[in-house]
């Protein structure tokens, strides 16, 4: 295969994926220390999807994310340190400490919010795309969801509405195998999710969510269709998550060795490294160097977040309304 993108772009994709991985692995270590409030859902294992999708988007395109949103935020360009502060509930966080892990947003980056309601986001993606259609600005929206959200009525409605209104949006489903503690195979009645998406009247493709290049290429085609006025598409990427539904989840529903096996067989970072170095597109050392830089950045982000001031109590009731 010929090299699909420049070495610079490959290293950029690696940097984004490894940033997500190390961000999440670090949070996994920090969570038990008790300084991070609330519920946190980690994205480790799914990095190729967020990055493979968002690498097809411009700053002006928008995404709507899920409760498992750190990966989408980082892939869309959210600042590592400001995200970390938000997760620690600090004043300097992207949402001033009022959102937290499940509600990180950065509108300046086209990141319209992680969403604590499973299935809450896709209708918003349809709406964003309606705005782009009416304004004729050539932008597209992406609504991320999991296998869990794929069963929500809101998502069905959003998909049908997008087809009816022919708006430039993508519904990206990350099938990590589990809706909380319940297997996707049990909870999804259809034989396969992509065919159910296609039944709404849009192109739908299944892809390997552990293969950055597969995600990138399938998304590229769907984004091109959307920008070309051909309406919405769905993409279903299979993957796994390396941690539980939430941090602290004892994961009794998974076979004892499942995660360890999947860390070997379904690691999107490992696959990416093997591929790009094996083909001779980039060197191992370049990847390692980036990882070291990322680790240093995350060290700083955690250190700074822990030292950062809490939100001022006066902000408790600010920004409920623009004016009231």
């Amino acid at each position: 295969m010929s090299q699909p993108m420049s070495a610079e772009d490959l290293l950029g994709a690696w940097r984004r994926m490894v940033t997500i991985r190390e961000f999440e692995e670090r949070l996994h270590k920090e969570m038990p220390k008790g300084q991070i409030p609330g519920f946190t859902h980690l994205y480790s294992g799914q990095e190729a999807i967020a990055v493979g999708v968002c690498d097809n988007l411009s700053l002006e395109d928008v995404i709507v994310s899920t409760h498992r949103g750190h990966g989408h935020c980082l892939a869309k360009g959210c600042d590592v340190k400001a995200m970390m502060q938000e997760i620690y509930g600090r004043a300097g966080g992207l949402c001033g400490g009022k959102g937290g892990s499940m509600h990180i947003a950065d509108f300046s980056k086209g990141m319209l919010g992680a969403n604590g309601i499973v299935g809450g986001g896709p209708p918003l993606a349809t709406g964003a795309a309606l705005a782009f259609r009416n304004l004729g600005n050539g932008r597209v929206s992406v609504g991320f969801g999991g296998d869990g959200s794929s069963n929500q009525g809101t998502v069905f409605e959003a998909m049908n509405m997008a087809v009816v209104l022919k708006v430039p949006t993508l519904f990206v489903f990350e099938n990590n195998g589990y809706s909380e503690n319940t297997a996707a195979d049990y909870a999804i009645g259809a034989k396969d999710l992509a065919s159910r998406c296609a039944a709404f009247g849009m192109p739908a493709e299944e892809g390997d969510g552990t293969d950055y290049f597969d995600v990138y290429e399938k998304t590229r085609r769907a984004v091109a269709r959307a920008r070309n006025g051909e309406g919405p598409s769905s993409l279903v990427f299979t993957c796994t998550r390396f941690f539980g539904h939430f941090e602290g989840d004892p994961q009794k529903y998974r076979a004892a060795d499942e995660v360890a096996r999947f860390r070997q067989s379904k690691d999107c970072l490992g696959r990416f490294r093997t591929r790009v170095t094996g083909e001779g597109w980039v060197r191992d050392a370049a990847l390692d160097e980036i990882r070291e830089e990322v680790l240093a950045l995350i060290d700083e982000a955690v250190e700074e977040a822990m030292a950062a001031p809490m939100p001022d109590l006066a902000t408790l009731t600010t920004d409920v309304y623009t004016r009231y």
Partner: protein
Amino acid sequence: MAVMTYREALTDAYRLSMRKDPRICILGEDVAGGAGASGQRNIGGIFGPWPDFLPEFGEQRMIDTPISESAIVGTAVGAALCGLRPVAEIMFSDFLGLCLDQIWNQAAKFRYMFGGQTSCPVVIRVNTGAGMSAGSQHSQTGYAMMTNIPGLKVVVPATPADVKGLVMTALQDPDPVIIFDHKSLFTEKGEVPEGEFYLPFGEADLVREGDDCTIVAISRMVKFSEKAADKLAEDGITVDIVNPRTLSPLDEETILESVAHTGRLVVVDESNPRCSAATDIAALVASKGFSSLKAAIELVTAPHSPPPFAPNLERAYVPGPKHIEAAVRRTLQGRNR
């Protein structure tokens, strides 16, 4: 001033606003009507508020949708985040149950939850209330539930002038607004200012001034309270009638000032009584205006039952002028409780 119906005032407000602001579009079931059908296109909406909006504003701005309330509101909300000023029409307020998440957890929370990064200028328009024998699932109000939601503004127009002024204000407001248009008021007539007309949110209308009792009445109940006041006047009893116009924000000052003057309060609301706008207003006066009260507060509401179908049952369900009149008289009997 022109005399127009509540429906005509609605039409006037949206038409003027849409001519002025090209970002405004209306999404909902049959808002234009007849999409893809074999007969007439451009039905003009189920209760007829959008006559000839389709030819004037086109399909990009008059958007017929599937029957899909979550997606109607969600699509409007998403579009509001990305540069449009959408109006989501939900045909009956009873259907808010189908799209509650998009209102409660999405639109109303974005500004706060995202630390003030965005506003969400979406308007949700619903037809509300009893009076048409529409049965238990097409006759409720629902504005009390909405008033409980921080981040959302709640508008309850009682007159054609209210409709025009409040709708035009809503269409310029940066925050999510839900407007409850009472379907039993659509043919009511009243004087309405011509041209652009804006009524501020959070400013009640003192519909009538008197000395003996304050009636705070919501939506259709304003009209019934005026009828009651006419009867009471025959006995020399005069009342303040306060029409809050918006339940969120609520004009607490006008209510408290009125009760300070009259010393008595009757709250009239056609909704169910528990955790309602009526109990909210009663609590306001009990907690902040207790020293003004000469008598127990009277609440005139629907019973704690769903709205019934049979016309005689429905007439008994909806508070009427007689109930209001009797409640005022009870407050005048001093120790009414």
